[in-house]
């Protein structure tokens, strides 16, 4: 709960520069310094940014968009996720460029102001609801006023109001006891039988963003910036929290999401290298269920999941969720209950080094 509060209060200090092509006055206007909510979306800042630059803009109609080191920023990705994904070494303030003209419609979905953003959010919520409950009736049948209240709560970062409205949507994924059980488990180390039957199985809507690169860096700061969205892969995938057995960790979840990169190697010394590993990595993600992960885990009681694995193929350099770089042993239910975005997706950013 406390973590959720931090997520909602989280903000990125932005230093926003007007693109030189739209500067018509001398001297050019100074950059605007604005605190942007993590859970917000960049174009929502337009009313705050516009006054800084309105006097210098060339004539024309405003179509606001943002860019970071040449990369047009996708407005439908929450600001905090963009920051986590595109700044290997968090840059504060984050220097981004604003454009009011020349919208790159071939790369970015047009944004018709707040309505577009609201519906992008609602549609995302709808998709999440479908993953969680198997249908999205609760979201679709929301009253106009509830829908507006929900959206306002996100815009204003009002967690209390959000919880009030969203509780009607019945979108709970995992029960909170699980979190506490897992916590006490790590403290006291009781057996897995105590957990069985008390865990509410849940399908978790995950949006996974992967920045892959082949160069080696000692320092993440040395990474060349993303100049093209081709370098980033992202997918929506449900992850099912395993009902039976032991605590289902973030590592288990990532193994379902990235079966090719987080194979058993990181868990089992016996399997390092060799042809067998290559084969298991090729299992289609669709059918790699958590059962398999659980089986494997059962064989190793003292495993220590590590961020790096499969050294011959790829290595996870960094994982960020809501600005946090969580340990992989953390119970996934804790992550879900505390770091979920208001659209009910868990946005996970992964920096992946792939060998050529």
């Amino acid at each position, binding site marked *: 709960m406390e973590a959720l509060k931090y997520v909602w209060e989280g903000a990125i200090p932005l230093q926003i520069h007007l693109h030189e092509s739209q500067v018509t006055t001398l001297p050019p206007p100074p950059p605007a310094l604005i605190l942007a909510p993590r859970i917000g979306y960049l174009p929502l800042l337009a009313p705050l940014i516009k006054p800084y630059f309105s006097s210098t803009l060339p004539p024309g109609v405003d179509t606001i968009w943002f860019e970071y080191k040449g990369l047009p920023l996708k407005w439908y990705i929450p600001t905090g996720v963009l920051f986590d994904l595109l700044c290997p070494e968090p840059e504060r303030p984050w220097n981004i460029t604003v454009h009011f003209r020349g919208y790159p*419609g071939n790369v970015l979905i*047009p944004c018709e102001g707040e309505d577009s953003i609201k519906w992008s959010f609602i549609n995302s919520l709808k*998709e999440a609801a479908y993953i969680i409950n198997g249908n*999205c009736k609760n979201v*679709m049948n929301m009253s106009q006023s509830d829908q507006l209240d929900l959206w306002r709560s996100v815009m204003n970062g009002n967690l209390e109001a959000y919880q009030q409205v969203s509780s009607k949507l019945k979108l709970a994924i995992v029960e909170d006891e699980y979190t506490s059980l897992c916590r006490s488990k790590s403290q006291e180390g009781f057996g897995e039988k105590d957990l069985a039957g008390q865990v509410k199985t849940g399908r978790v809507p995950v949006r996974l963003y992967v920045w892959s690169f082949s160069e080696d860096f000692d320092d993440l700061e040395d990474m060349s910036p993303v100049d093209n969205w081709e370098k980033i892969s992202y997918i929506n995938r449900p992850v099912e929290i395993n009902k039976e057995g032991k605590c289902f960790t973030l590592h288990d979840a990532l193994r379902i999401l990235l079966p090719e990169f987080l194979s058993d190697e990181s868990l089992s010394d016996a399997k390092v290298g060799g042809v067998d590993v290559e084969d298991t990595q090729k299992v289609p993600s*669709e059918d790699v269920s958590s059962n398999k992960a659980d089986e494997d885990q059962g064989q190793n009681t003292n495993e220590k999941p590590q961020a790096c694995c499969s050294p011959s193929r790829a290595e996870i350099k960094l994982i960020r969720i809501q600005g946090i770089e969580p340990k992989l042993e953390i119970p996934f239910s804790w992550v879900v209950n505390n770091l979920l975005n208001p659209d009910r997706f868990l946005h996970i950013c992964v920096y992946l080094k792939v060998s050529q």
Partner: protein
Amino acid sequence: MDVLNWDGTLSAKDFRIGAIAFAQKWETLNLGYPPWSWVPSPKHPPLTSPQEEGYLSLEKIRISRPKQEDVDQNIKTDTGEEETSCSEKEDDIDDATLVQSSHHELQYYDFHIVYSHTFRVPVLYLRAYRSDGRPLLLDEFEKDLPACSVKELSKSKWTFITQEEHPYLKRPWYKLHPCGTVEWMKLLILGDTSQPKFEVVLELYLLSWFSVVGQVIGIRIPVNVLSDCR
């Protein structure tokens, strides 16, 4: 799989099987359109998809608006030659049909059928563009759509067809929202008194699906085709 308890969804693997069956069936139907082709998902190194991932594609299709009485005939026989004379003048007529054409000033459509891992059903993505490649906005091409689609668009602007990123191409495309798909797919497939085997369901799934979705964009599959498949 027990068809009676079937929830109306497909796995990614079944989607591919069903998609290929649909593409083959499509060719034998001889509706006057080019064939659908299976496009394997482009390689994205970090999230290399299993081999079966991909989507169906039908590209460079022209929508024109023939006279009401010609509709049924056009679907079966039109090859495009007459369509150039049958132009935007007839804006007051609601029915539309799709025809391939090489005319230069016209609007073209690309259709992709993509699998949604969330909804576990096929989803239709489309885009429209001029012959010079300039993309068209929904406002510009909605007049090509059947009247019922236009009506639905005005009623539910944000929940029927919206611009979203193509899951594989990562570019703005229009997407037909899939929220209710499983419900009407169950009705379509299981509404019949005879309960088909799952293999038969799979064979028919995309054709049945497209018989509904195609109408939104003005492609009709003759009713007898579906019943003949049973």
